[in-house]
């Protein structure tokens, strides 16, 4: 079971308190009526599904109930960092360099 830090509660809790909520930073289209079918498919269905560092959303369902973002390695399942909603996505390449040091 994963141990996950909630950036709002500031504590590490077991995974069963949380709900995974998919890939992060997929912005809802500003003008939905202007989208082509390809763009809709891209927004609704196409996913990065990376093998390596991934930006994803979690919800602390059985805690504060808030959504937050995390960077996790999908091979080792280790969390690299967590950050609040609205904060910019960290530079994944930079994180890789830091992790190597």
């Amino acid at each position: 079971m994963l141990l996950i830090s909630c950036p709002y509660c500031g504590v590490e809790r077991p995974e069963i308190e949380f709900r995974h909520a998919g890939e992060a930073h997929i912005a809802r289209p500003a003008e939905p009526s202007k989208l082509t079918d390809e763009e809709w498919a891209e927004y609704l269905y196409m996913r990065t599904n990376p093998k390596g560092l991934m930006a994803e959303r979690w919800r602390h369902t059985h805690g504060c109930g808030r959504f937050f973002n995390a960077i996790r390695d999908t091979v080792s399942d280790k969390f690299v960092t967590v950050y609040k909603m609205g904060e910019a996505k960290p530079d994944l390449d930079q994180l890789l360099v830091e992790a190597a040091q």
Partner: protein
Amino acid sequence: MPGVPKRRLDLWLRPGKKGRQRQMSRFNFWELAKNALSAHENWGRQWRAPEPKGEYDVVIIGAGGHGLATAYYLAKEHGVTNVAVLEKGWLGGGNTGRNTTIVRSNYLWEESEGLYDHAMDLWQNLSQELNYNVMYSARGVMMLAHTIHDVQVFKRHVYANRLAGVQNEWLTAEEAKEYCPPLNISKNMRYPVLGAALQRKAGVARHDAVAWGYARGADKYGVDIIQNCAVTGIRRGADGAVEGVETSRGFIRAKKIGVVAAGHTTTVMDMAGVRMPLESYPLQALVSEPVKPCFPCVVMSNTIHAYMSQSDKGELVIGAGTDQYISYSQTGGLQIPAHTIEAICELFPMFRRMRMLRNWGGTVDVTPDRSPIIGKTPVPGLFVNCGWGTGGFKATPGSGHVFAHTLAKGEPHPINAPFTLDRYRTGRLIDEAAAAAVAH
């Protein structure tokens, strides 16, 4: 390697002339008797370990059941024998060797019924076809209903299946108990059994034997199965069409490439610049210690997340659910199998003191509508067979058969024509989300 006679080990490690000659032999009573005289030490290699050639007509990425079946039918039905199957690890070492071996075809939508029942037809005679015992056992798959909603959904399945000529029938709780005596149909359970949908010709097959049988069959037709050969890139020409694959063992030229890489499909398709509607999740399974035959069929319960059968060796083979997060770790949280075990203990009280032996995970590629993608991609010459999610094993023969057709003709077989990548653009989804197995 204790217990393996030295002579046999040599044959495996160094494919000599002897091994090459013997791989053509058919398995029959005469061969068995002949080999018994030499204490079964002289069975040869069943497929070659060739060096990759510079060019093939078709390169298939992934030597799991689906990839090997594709190669087999390409050679046998379409005469395309200049084929390589590239495998990063070892043959059948991914989800083919990790699934819970269940075979069934009682899906809801017509498109899926066509696809899975096509596979079911091929399962019936597969051992004879391959001259390899895949141990297909039509012991029946029973899907339990625990709520009014389950009852309505499963009855709808039964009616839809029977209209389409797919075997499926409704059982009351008592009839379910008669079919599977260990089942607890007490009214005191948290989720009592209200009935079940039963497909009698569904059952199990030996997963490794399926991969090995197809590998042997494909090799016999001259297909090169190249293990420990990771694809590192897909080279495309100025017109966008594929030219070949970069691998850890050099560049291999090919005008047609079939990607059958299960959980790693996104990783491979990224090399060609094609975005996929896939997410890769861990799916776990576990087996118990082996016991005497005591469990007659396959029982699945979507509602309380359990499915189980007994292998011919005697182990209870138990499928757990997917973990909630994307991962390529081939492992998952212990709470997932623990949850399944709780359900099993409730449904089958006689297994409460059973000890579990092994627990493992695979990486499954899940599509938004829980149906596979089999067909062309926007890149000319690049074909994909993926998205089987938590239930690809059952479709192995049918999947390989229609994908071979697609690769050979450049156009899909009528059975896989609806399973395009383009359906996510057109909106013609095949929504099996409610219909498929436990993790969906």
